[in-house]
């Protein structure tokens, strides 16, 4: 009955052997994927980090540089004959601290590996390093790892510079370039972020053999495929570091912003966000704890006001109204409108010593009822018999001009997180009024820069630079040269013309000159030996004190600097804003402060008294 069973055994044995051989033939000979996988398995791609590019100011002063930092690392398995008493002495630790450090090491659980280098003491100072280096050989398993971090020559300019830190998980997911790996450093905001591509340089690659524990077994193929790292490009900023620091000093203790632009190029000379923080706080050792403190500050030092704070512009918008109305031909420079003082609602009340001004006078004295009428003429040009429809047509026309000044949309500065601001369109009001009809009497407060319109300080500065140029602007930017002898990015070399004629701008310039000579700016903004053109603004901010605004450029002919100053809760634009702007102009044009009393007044910051 057992006939043939022997053969079954023999057949099964041979069959299993054949199945293995066939399977192995496919795994070993036919399918080459495994050989490739084996390479990625045992060959480690090691990235060699390039030096990040440095950043200089417009006069060649260093702003941002790299500084070496030293961490003490340990491979736990390599630690032998550990003399803890000696270790404590050399590294200046107490026994308790040492014990704690070992405990923390093992508490890292997932990360912890006894065969990989683990961070033991981070950021040794240079003196520490010198002291420790002679003793390192007494502690096998411990070694010093050098790397570079960012350092800043001055304590300011933080919001524009941004900072560098480890790439976040979300950013990793978004990164399509595949350049970054977990744990890599990346520019997180400001210039560091915008010019990340230029600054980071090119990483070098080294191929090393390693085993499953990650232990280095020498270069692969004698380093034939290795590439050297290429340092990042240096950037020349348009910032005038001296002016920047002076501006920061003036803004000290105040919230708001100062933006100064060279009108002929669009290069930003100063970009201050107040309050700010010391950029050195967000580098190296105490990054995370400092970041927490800074980001939870109620004054929002991380909020980059020049780009992100959307304010109502206030009376500086009267220049905009004048330009659009002149361009549309609804007024002439000689148009006189009586000042009725009261009657359009509280916001339009007027107090100044004027009664029946022409355009220049109305600007110089910042007459509210005058511009109420100007906007009415602008919006209701009787292009339609239906007053609602007529306003729509007028507003659309107005929008076209205002947008051409760079309002209502991002200008495209070389910094991230710029805000649009808001220039209301007919559509916007449809939404705001739930598609019920609206007309001039509903929206007149935009005539004096109150109401719905919002601008960021950068747009104000760009606008005054446009006036200084009599009708065009270059997009404001912070980097004037990529590489030592380079150019800015292409988009910053393009001229943008407004829809308003140059001749109309000349009228605006005249008016702004009068503001400083004999109008609202005469007390604080006037300079003896240069013609300053400006405009004050006092933005309603019930129930808090008004915001103080001032825009200006100087000299009147061949302007060198255009500036916008916005100080929150500082009252009249004629005081805080005008003083700061004029001190800045003086500093830039004459490299000195000649009116110490005015500086003291600004530094004291008591503008409301």
């Amino acid at each position: 009955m057992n006939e043939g069973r022997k053969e079954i055994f023999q057949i099964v044995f041979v069959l299993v052997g054949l199945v293995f051989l066939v399977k192995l033939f496919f795994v070993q000979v036919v399918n080459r994927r495994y050989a490739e996988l084996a390479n990625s398995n045992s060959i480690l791609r090691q990235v060699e980090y390039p030096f990040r590019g440095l950043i200089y100011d417009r006069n060649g002063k260093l702003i941002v540089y790299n500084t070496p930092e030293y961490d003490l690392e340990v491979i736990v398995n390599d630690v032998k004959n550990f003399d803890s008493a000696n270790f404590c002495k050399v590294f200046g630790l107490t026994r308790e601290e040492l014990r704690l450090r070992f405990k923390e090491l093992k508490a890292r659980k997932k990360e912890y590996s006894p065969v990989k280098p683990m961070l033991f003491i981070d950021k040794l100072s240079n003196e520490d390093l010198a002291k420790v280096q002679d003793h390192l050989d007494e502690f096998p398993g411990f070694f010093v790892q050098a790397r570079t971090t960012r350092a800043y020559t001055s304590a300011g300019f933080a919001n524009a510079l941004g900072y560098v830190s480890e790439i976040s998980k979300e950013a990793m997911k978004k990164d399509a370039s595949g350049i970054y790996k977990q744990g890599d450093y990346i520019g997180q905001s400001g210039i560091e972020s915008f010019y990340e591509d230029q600054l980071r340089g090119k990483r070098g690659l080294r191929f090393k053999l390693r085993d499953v524990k990650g232990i280095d077994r020498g270069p692969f193929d004698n380093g034939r495929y290795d590439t050297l790292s290429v340092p990042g490009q240096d950037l020349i900023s348009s910032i005038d570091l001296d002016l920047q620091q002076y501006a920061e000093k003036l803004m000290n203790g105040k919230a708001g912003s100062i933006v100064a632009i060279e009108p002929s190029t669009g290069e930003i000379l100063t970009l201050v966000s107040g309050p700010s923080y010391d950029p050195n706080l967000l580098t190296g050792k105490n990054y995370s704890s400092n970041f927490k403190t800074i980001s939870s500050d109620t004054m929002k030092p991380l909020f980059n006001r020049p780009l992100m704070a959307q304010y109502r512009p206030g009376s500086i918008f009267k220049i905009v109204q004048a330009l659009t109305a002149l361009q549309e031909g609804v007024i002439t420079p000689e148009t006189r409108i009586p000042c009725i003082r009261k009657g359009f609602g509280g916001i339009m009340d007027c107090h100044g010593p004027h009664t029946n001004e022409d355009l220049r006078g109305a600007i110089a004295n910042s007459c509210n009822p005058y511009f109420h009428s100007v906007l009415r003429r602008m919006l209701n040009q009787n292009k339609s018999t239906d007053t609602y429809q007529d306003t729509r047509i007028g507003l659309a026309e107005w929008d076209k001009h205002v947008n051409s000044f760079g309002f209502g949309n991002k200008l495209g500065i070389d910094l991230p997180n710029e805000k649009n601001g808001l220039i209301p369109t007919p559509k916007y009001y449809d939404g705001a009024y739930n598609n019920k009809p609206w007309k001039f009497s509903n929206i007149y407060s935009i005539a004096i820069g109150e109401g719905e319109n919002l601008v960021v300080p950068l747009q104000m500065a760009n606008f005054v630079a446009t006036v200084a140029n009599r009708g065009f602007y270059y997009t404001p930017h912070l980097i004037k040269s990529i590489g030592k002898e380079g150019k800015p990015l292409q988009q910053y070399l393009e001229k943008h013309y407004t829809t308003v004629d140059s001749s109309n701008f000349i009228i605006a310039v005249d008016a702004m000159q009068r503001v400083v000579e004999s109008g609202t700016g005469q007390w604080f903004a006037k300079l003896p030996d240069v013609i300053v053109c400006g405009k004050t603004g006092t933005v309603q901010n019930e129930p808090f004190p008004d915001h103080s605004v001032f825009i200006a450029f100087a000299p009147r002919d061949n302007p060198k600097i255009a500036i916008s100053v916005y100080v929150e809760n500082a009252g009249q634009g004629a005081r805080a804003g005008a003083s700061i702007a004029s001190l800045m102009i003086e500093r830039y044009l004459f490299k000195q402060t000649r009116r110490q009393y005015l500086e003291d007044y600004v530094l004291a910051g008591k503008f409301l008294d």
Partner: protein
Amino acid sequence: MRRDNDISGSIDWTTVMLFFGLVAFGWLNIFAAVYDENAKQSIFDLSLNSGRQLLFIGASLIIAFAITIVDLRFYETFAYVFYAVILFVLILVPIIGKEVGGNKAWIGIGSFGVQPSEFAKFITALAIAKYIGSVGFRMDSLRSQAILFALIGLPMGLILLQKDTGTALVFTSFVLVFFREGMSPFLLIVGICAATLFVLTLLIPDPVYLYIAIAIILVLLILLEKRKKFGRIVLLTVGALMISGVIASVDYVVKDVLKPHQQNRIKALINPDADPLGFGWNVTQSKIAIGSGGFFGKGFLKGTQTKFDFVPEQSTDFIFCTIGEEHGWIGSVIVIAAFVTLLLRIVYLAERQKNRFTRAYGYSVACIFFFHFAVNIGMTVGLFPVIGIPLPFFSYGGSALWGFTILLFILLKLDAHRGQVLQRI
């Protein structure tokens, strides 16, 4: 009795040569698996697995020689005594044993440990052979079968208690011996069908598809049934329902009874790429190592995968990776051919016995080697779930090597004397 001890003329030298060849090649591969280029170690270095394995090999040669000079009746006579002793030791292991790698299968003797379960294999083989060879044994008697299953079930159960599933499963290979000695193939067929169903259930994520397949087959069978007898239709339906029940129970067993690491091993078999750095690590790395060897291999001591420790347990359970990587497909062919030759040779030896005890023992040896060979290589090439059992003569470890050596040389000893024993065919 002098002739009894001098068997050099009658021992099967073919098998002995195969044994030496496998052990020697195994030893070289153990060295390759632990070799470190920078350390300039010697293959004889006792701090390395290869150095220690050489000691084990030396000891196994002494054991092999000792086996050949002991009186041949000793093995059959004391088979049940050995069996009782090993059962006792296996009971002791969980109590006094030490834990190695999650299994409590070791007993410490001095500075090194011994794995009693490795010796339980040859002892159980002897006990089964003795029972099958006993006077009046009839395979078709239910009582005999029950006793045989008890003989393999007892050590198996005790080893399961040590959580050494792999070694315990080796004992199922004795069922093949029963088959050779006359057991009805029904049990085997049912077993194979159950295993096929089990694998199908695992491969097909939703059992609903299997139910549908069974339903379709059932309808086809009924339609093809010419006479449309009511009884047959009922029978087929009941059968289909029973199979569906098995599928449902497999689903339950896999998801609720198997431990997570066992589930993962099965999942890794089905789709090792699902989590290549997690539960699929062993199989993935093993395949990468073997696959990177190509046709001719990277050369002795030139493997990057095995040398840099990507494959875990590579000098023990995953030793075949080293062969595959360094010696390529050619090396694999040689090793597999050597094993198949050994298995066929053992069957040949078993079949030429005139004595039922020796024949049953011979088949036990063949089946145990076959199980180890098939499962171990099957798992390294990803055809079988990861079950931690060694590749005979290759894997590092004293107990296993000695167990296999004893297993083989007792057969050689019995075979050498086949002319002297004529009783009880």
